[in-house]
């Protein structure tokens, strides 16, 4: 293949991996950013990381009904619907952004999800930053 996609992963601190000290993935191409709540993420934040060189964004949010701040996870989903349209308008595939709703206190599932996301990004190829 010869191409390794760069991935930014936002994870909710109240739902994912709070029982482990997450050093972050060891690969240089994955950037893990724990946030207080997925609802805190703005489309601006995501566009920014795309601009800086990311090929895809993965958001790890809480399971439905389990958000510590009531329903920030739902807000994040709403934001994504809009962002997908914006990306599409710029000719960027919607599949470059993905959100997962679950609870994973130990963060056991995070590496797997990152691998899956990277595989689908690899299939898409590098993001043409001129589109942004």
């Amino acid at each position: 293949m010869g191409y390794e996609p760069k991935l930014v992963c936002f994870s909710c601190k109240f739902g994912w991996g709070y029982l482990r000290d997450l050093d972050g993935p060891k690969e240089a191409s994955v950037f893990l950013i724990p946030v207080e709540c997925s609802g805190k993420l703005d489309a601006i934040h995501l566009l920014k990381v795309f601009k800086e060189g990311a090929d895809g964004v993965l958001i790890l949010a809480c399971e439905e009904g389990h958000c510590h701040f009531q329903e920030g996870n739902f807000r994040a989903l709403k934001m994504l619907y809009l962002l997908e349209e914006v990306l599409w308008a710029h000719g960027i595939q919607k599949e470059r952004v993905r959100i997962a709703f679950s609870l994973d206190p130990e963060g056991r599932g995070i590496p797997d999800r990152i691998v899956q996301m990277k595989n689908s990004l690899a299939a898409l190829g590098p993001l043409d930053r001129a589109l942004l």
Partner: protein
Amino acid sequence: MWNTVSKGTAAVERAVKQYLPPCQEQCPINEDIQRTNVLISLLPDDPETAAPAILQIGDYLYDKNPFFSVCGYVCGLCELECNYHAKGGAIKRRLLKRFISDTYIPHLETREEWSLIKHKENVAIVGGGPAGLMAGFDLSRRGYRVTIFEASDRLGGALWLIPRYRLPERVLTSTLEGMVRMVGMDVRLNTRIGQGKWTLEKLRNEGFKAIFIAQGTPTPRTLTFGRNQVEGQDLSGVMYGQTFLYEVSHGNIRPNYFTGKKVLVIGGGNVAFDVARTARRLGGETSIVALECEDKASRDGIPADVEEIRGAWEEGIRIIYSRGVEKIIGESERMKGLVCPRCVRVYDEKGFNPAFDPADTLVLDGDVLIVTVGQGPDWTALQEEGLVDGHGRLAVDPVTLQSRNRKPVFVGGDLRKIGFMVEAMQDGLVAAESIERYLQDRDMTEGRKRVFEVQDIPMRRHYLTEPEVVWIPPEKRMHFQLFERGFTLTEAIEEARRCLACGPCISCKACVSIGLRDSLNPAEVLTDRCCGCGICVSACFYSAIQLKDVDMGRISLTDAFKCKSCGMCVSSCPSGARTLGEDALEAALMTAAAGLQNSPGAVP
């Protein structure tokens, strides 16, 4: 695994006026309910790794409420006001606390005592119940030398009247022993104050600079009909509920004591139900005769809790509503039955004033009569010590609990006002604060009355339903073991997760204490960018944002006491007029951006 830390930023703050979640406002001692609920919700689901974290939560609770292990079995006042009440059932806080208690009790039994420096005055506490022990515990931690004078042969007072099937003996004894041991209080058992050689004057002469009287209500109320005592209360087979429960808890009544006997219990309160259910477990064919009617919503409704009534009914106890007792029928010095006219009214505008229908009378047969119609203090002793005013009431300031007649004396607990266990504990804490102020010659009232406002239920689309509480089936329940099943670790985490954490951060800070967040900066508004559109108002789940008209136009403002720093308003603001100050997300994005630029991307 996380560790709770007691650094400054993680300490809950106390203010004269503040918002609290409704449960904490309802709790007389304002236990940090939300904080510990959130901590339970963040426990690992593996019992072995969870154990040390459960003890940390227990230690935190113990610091403020050394009785929490008992509360976890018998209280639950907070659940009455839970915001979730109308949306799927209150959070089962009592069972969550019982869950912590079950791990904590063995730890408490071996926990090392606190090393406290007792350099302050001697204080005497009269009565070793919840009020007295709480005052003694608090004063000892403040550095006072405390001596508890207890009339009976063990501490605990009215807590011993709670039947074993609701509160296991080990939980109670370990809690009581733990309290005395942890702070090093001096206890003198079998010492009744106000009788014989021990008077308040003597205590003063012995060097006690202040005295807290919390003797409770040891005297059972007798049965009356109209204005007269009901005759026959001296017959054999007639006893009083408090005395009965006391004897049972002391192990003086053998199993099957009532087998083959018809037991009649008079009273409609929780104590009457405790008595009836205890009598049933001792083999008696038991009936409760209550003055009040079945409809709890009416003014004359039965005061006992729904759970008690349900439990009694399941156990085969007959409940006879709206009946008074006019006469006890005796036969050769033994009680044989009751004459019960129908009660048509219990309360009128002025208060307790029952009226009966003489035409409708029921005669009940019985071998044993247990009268449980309330209890009162030992008035003779109080009068002798000059603590009563001209109207025959206790002369005591309700805010400071200081006696109006004798300044070094403070009065509290059931003796002052019959209530729940935690209300007596509150009196103990109030008295401890008053005693310190009195001994330090400070203002007794300044800042004592705190005003709390209750936080409303947050907006949400999904509410979760409450778990079912499992009771052992009635046919397997006729013993003095617990009949209610506690939470497993998984159930406790699940239930704690249901808590909406509706209260503000200032009285919680669970996330800061375990390092999940560094700080809790309330959202700020850049007024020159804010156009007053109000999107943030609807974005905030906690109604912490309001619009305000100023000179330049309309802007939004954040109530810093309600703001939970979640950032919903920041991400929803279309003009970037809201920030969370020095936010970790911005810094993390900068780092990631630098990394992305330096990362090669393509691997050869």
